[in-house]
């Protein structure tokens, strides 16, 4: 517990490991990883969070394999894997 507090929580963003503070959202973890694109729009353009409060759906990412999760409404958990559209476009 104390360790988790000191070292933060470990998550993966697009395959890269990083540690985030407790109470960090998945959307914030993506920003911490230096990634700005969360999803691609229907025409294929990069989009990231807009409202921060669960309304706009622009922050959708894949969390632990589950598609279309709102990053701004999801708290990071140890071991969480977050994938944004950036991975799909690199592949």
């Amino acid at each position: 517990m104390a360790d988790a507090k000191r070292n933060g929580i470990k998550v993966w963003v697009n395959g890269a490991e990083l540690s985030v503070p407790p109470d960090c959202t998945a959307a914030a973890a993506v920003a911490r990883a230096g990634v700005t694109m969360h999803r691609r729009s229907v025409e294929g353009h990069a989009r990231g969070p807009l409202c921060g409060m669960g309304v706009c759906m622009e922050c959708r990412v894949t969390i632990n394999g589950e598609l279309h999760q709102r990053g701004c409404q999801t708290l990071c958990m140890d071991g969480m894997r977050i994938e944004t559209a950036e991975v799909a476009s690199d592949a």
Partner: protein
Amino acid sequence: MPERTCRIAIIGAGPAGMAAAVSAVEAGAENVLVIDDNPRPGGQIWRGETDDATAREWMQKFEPCGAALLGQTRIVAAPQPGVLLAENGAKTLTIRYEKLILATGASERFLPFPGWTRPNVMGAGGLQTLAKGGLPLEGKRVVVAGSGPLLLAVADEMWHMGARIKCIAEQAAPNAVMRLGLRLLGSPGKLAQAVQLKLRLFGVPYRMGWHPLQVDGADGTSGDDSDAPVASVTLTNGAAKRIQIPCDYLACAFHLTPRLELAHLLGCDTEWIERQCQRRTTVDAWQRSSVEGVYCAGESTGVGGVDAALIEGRIAGYAATGAQDRARPLLKQRDAWRRFADAMNETFAPRPELRMLPEPRTIICRCEDVRYEQVVAKESWRAAKLHTRHGMGACQGRICGGAAEFLFDWSARSSRPPVCPTRMKTLAERPSADQKGD
């Protein structure tokens, strides 16, 4: 499907919902259930924060008051009077109530301009909320733009988080803001503080009558057709003057707009206030909506700030419990807050010139990538939806609806169930009128 039955259901655990719960219990109501889609109470302003004295006071009243809190639970449909459908993670829940208090708050109003869809262009409260959730702002260059007292509060908070606030651009004209400022001198409260915060934003220019014109990306492109995040924003005062400010984030929203999805779903009357460019739920002196047994309090009856939300919540909580005598002494104060809120909303209503901001290729509906040129000639919201899928994507028109109401004078009222993007399973499990329990 699991079921919860309660006497009073309160949707929203922000200041209005918490005050309603505390007052209802105080007036003798049993079995009060508060539902919010966030894990913790507090609403947009107090979520996860305890250093504000008023916030602490209300948290301390709310937590032990005896009302049950269902967190991380979203109301997604209202299939019949007295019944709500809710989602909690993967679970679906039926909620049966006798009285209902809507305290669903407000969200930011977004207006389209070239480049507003780029990554790192966010709402003002949006960026603040994301930063509270761990998005690092230390050393980041932020331009705050749009309208409303929230811009000042947000800039101040982000400045304390280490952001370099390059500029605050308020679209309202200087004389309008000054007039409101004078009124504020005579009215103590949160909003007065918000305007005074400006003084603390040492060295940050507050440009009144200025608004964003376009966003450019690091790749040198402008407009909505590139992946490059914001690199600079061009601001204008409407006349020939323009300035281009490099930034890492543009935090931009044009004041707030009441969240009415549930009110519309339940059939509550709403009214369009032209001078405020705002649609709100119609309520009477006791916060009763047009639908029997459904009350409404806080920002969903018109944006008014935290003090108005608290007092309306108290009135609604008492009235829903039949304790009008307890609510009566509060009515005068509530009306005073409302009058002030009206003046504020008129001051920060978007100026008509902002209708000219989108270019033909500017995206209006972000979910479906519908562009201005595709919808500008449509005669109604319905026609735009039918022909272009405008407003039919994942956000269900909650972002573009407010913009459309302003840009095209269509009524964006059209909350068809479900109110939130929902899982198909929930709808398949809709209770029928005579079916009860699992």
